[in-house]
């Protein structure tokens, strides 16, 4: 179906179902229970899951397929955000023109940066992309202040032209009247599910670009990109000029990032230069590696994982810990809380760093490889015969898609 193999069609349908049902299954605990703070089904976070999913999908087309580690992808995110906010300022709050412009602008930007950076490979490529991104970040703070509004951040003011703005049009981002931050709350027993317009808008875009990247992964073009990762010289000897392929991959990946940045501004109509800082580029690298670079689903899981950590795990403070471990004897309780508290709340970065190191050291294939290992172990325990054992072992060593 849609040019996909039967297995991929099933995969795509599974992803679509999961994405559409996200508001339900991220809300597993009833509102009244003490675990309710682990519910992630609120609009802001769900939108972030989808948006950063798009961002990391794009990064994965570059890093996962070709192995070129870009440390400057946040620049495209920033360009996308600025484009959308500018369209709000000039036209009106409809997100569509902004998103189109975001993709085009980040594509042009990526074409330029990619054209220069791809002249080098390895660590030099990483440093070049980092240098470009940091330059954009610094310039956004200084010279480009008329365009970016400097440290204040770009936002819509009352005296902006907004030429398409009509009487009674929504005064927050919308798609032809569908206001993004509107949501419907449905209460089922103790559970409250929030179905948000913005989330479904981002989710549908995410599904579309997921399909696109699935096609890229399976296409001859994707094959060439993989070949570049394996051995670029050999491709050159075979008479294939790798440069246009690399550049195309870079531009596509930049456009994904621009789209993600645009969606960030579509959910919340303001932006600032800090979206372009290198720490944001580092974050997307963390996401891709943690989930499993080069696999379809891994990076998206990684993005979800990190965003979940950032928003939920960081809220666990000492009083919550006291509540949890209240059943222990006092001395033990204090000891346990003393041990746990550096790793939660404000210290969630520490946990993330440790986890990331563990993944890089033991599971270079990320969460996906870990899952495959576990599946493989179960298969072996259930007494399957030799050939299957080998199959699961090899699929664990080299995680397929």
């Amino acid at each position, binding site marked *: 179906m849609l040019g996909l193999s039967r297995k991929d069609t099933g995969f795509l349908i599974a992803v679509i179902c999961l994405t559409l049902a996200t508001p339900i299954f991220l809300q597993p605990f009833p509102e009244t229970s003490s675990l309710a703070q682990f519910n992630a089904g609120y609009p802001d976070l769900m939108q972030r899951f989808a948006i950063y999913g798009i961002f990391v999908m794009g990064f994965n087309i570059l890093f996962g397929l070709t*192995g070129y*580690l870009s440390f400057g992808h946040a620049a495209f995110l920033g360009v996308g955000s600025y484009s959308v906010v500018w369209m709000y300022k000039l036209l009106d709050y409809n997100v569509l023109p902004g998103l189109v412009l975001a993709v085009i602008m980040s594509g042009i930007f990526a074409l330029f940066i990619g054209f*220069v950076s791809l*002249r*080098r*490979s*390895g*660590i*030099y490529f*990483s*440093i*070049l992309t*980092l*240098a*470009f991104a*940091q*330059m954009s970040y*610094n*310039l956004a*703070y*200084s*010279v*480009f202040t008329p365009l970016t509004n400097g440290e204040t951040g770009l936002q819509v003011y009352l005296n902006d032209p907004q030429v398409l703005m009509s009487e009674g049009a929504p005064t927050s981002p919308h798609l032809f009247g569908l206001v993004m931050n509107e949501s419907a709350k449905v209460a089922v027993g103790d559970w409250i599910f929030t179905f948000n317009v913005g989330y479904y808008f981002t989710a549908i875009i995410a599904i579309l670009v997921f399909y696109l990247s699935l096609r890229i992964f399976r296409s001859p073009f994707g094959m060439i990109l993989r070949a570049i990762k394996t051995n*670029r*010289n050999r491709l050159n000897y075979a008479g294939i000029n790798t440069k246009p392929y690399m550049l195309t991959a870079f531009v596509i990946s930049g456009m994904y990032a621009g789209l993600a940045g645009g969606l960030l501004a579509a959910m919340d109509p303001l932006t600032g230069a800090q979206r372009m800082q*290198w*720490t944001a580029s*580092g974050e997307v*690298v963390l996401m891709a*590696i943690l989930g499993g670079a080069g696999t379809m689903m891994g990076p998206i899981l990684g993005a979800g994982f990190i965003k979940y950590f950032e928003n939920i795990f960081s809220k666990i403070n000492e009083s919550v810990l006291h509540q949890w471990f209240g059943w222990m004897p006092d001395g033990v309780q204090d000891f346990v809380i003393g041990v746990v508290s*550096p790793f939660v709340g404000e*210290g969630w*970065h*520490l946990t*993330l*760093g*440790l986890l*990331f*190191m563990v993944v*890089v*050291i033991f599971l*270079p294939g990320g969460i996906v490889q870990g899952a495959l290992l576990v599946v493989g172990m179960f298969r072996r325990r259930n007494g399957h015969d030799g050939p299957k054992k080998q199959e699961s072992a090899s699929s664990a060593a080299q995680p397929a898609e």
Partner: protein
Amino acid sequence: MDAIILQILNGLDKGSAYALIALGLTLIFGTLGVVNFAHGALFMIGAFCAVTVQKLVTLSFEEVDPTRTDFLGNPLKVQMPYVDALFGPSAGEFLINWSVPLAIVLAIPVMLVVGITMERGLIKHFYKRPHAEQILVTFGLAIVLQEIVRYFFGANPIPTGAPSAFAGPMDIGAILGFTPGTVIYPYWRFVYFIFSAIVIGGVFAFLQFTTFGMVVRAGMNDRETVGLLGINIDRRFTIMFGIAAVVAGMAGVMYAPILSPNFHMGMDFLVLSFVVVVVGGMGSLPGAVAAGFLLGILQSFASMNEVKSLIPGIDQVIIYLVAIIVLLTRPRGLMGRRGVMEE
């Protein structure tokens, strides 16, 4: 003329820090072939050694001073540092005043231990793995180290003063024969430059004039042959990693009075230091030092008002711009050796 000298001087202290960190990075890369993203964290740990020493010597207890009274007429309670009580007021005063330079005594063993532990515990397992994975694992380590420091010292910068003898500005213009008052330069920055020149000279002398250094240089050129000659090159490289950590740590200790240490200062410096290393040429020690000073001085020239009005925003991007131009025109960097990290 005096304006130019002032800008060169302004560039020297940042340039010294870049050069010291880049030197350590290059030592590690040249010997072990590892790209160490945690090197900025080592610089940061060094700076926090200075903070620790300052905190230790100013640890104090409350004491009643019988000679003075407060405004109610009661005997005044004063904070009495332990060092004053132990060594007498003058020696105690001296220790508190000179806590930053003294922190080097603490920093050397600490950094040596941290460096060697890092190498044996983690980096050792990454020799054979791709550079991308080395970058990633050391990046993770850097996050962990800086979060540990934040846990103990908090997220705010901690002011750490220079010794009062070097605290004020000095009038270099008067020394060099210009009109007094035109070239004013903070004393401590000058000390920092001298200090880094000594450290850099020391490292080069160590590599050039000792047997140990000779073996290390030989190992950098051809590791296998040196190993075949029956020399345990791995152990020496581990020690070199420790030395690189010590260099970064000392750079951090002495930088504490210039920039109040905070937990993410390492990352801020690391990004620029990597640019410095790449501009200088991966694996070239003189290249790293030269590029460090060059970029530091260029940056301070770019932040002159005359230059800024000519090309707006140049002060923000000059380093990256130079890096891009150098990488595109001289792919090996300014002094890079042939065959290091090419394709």
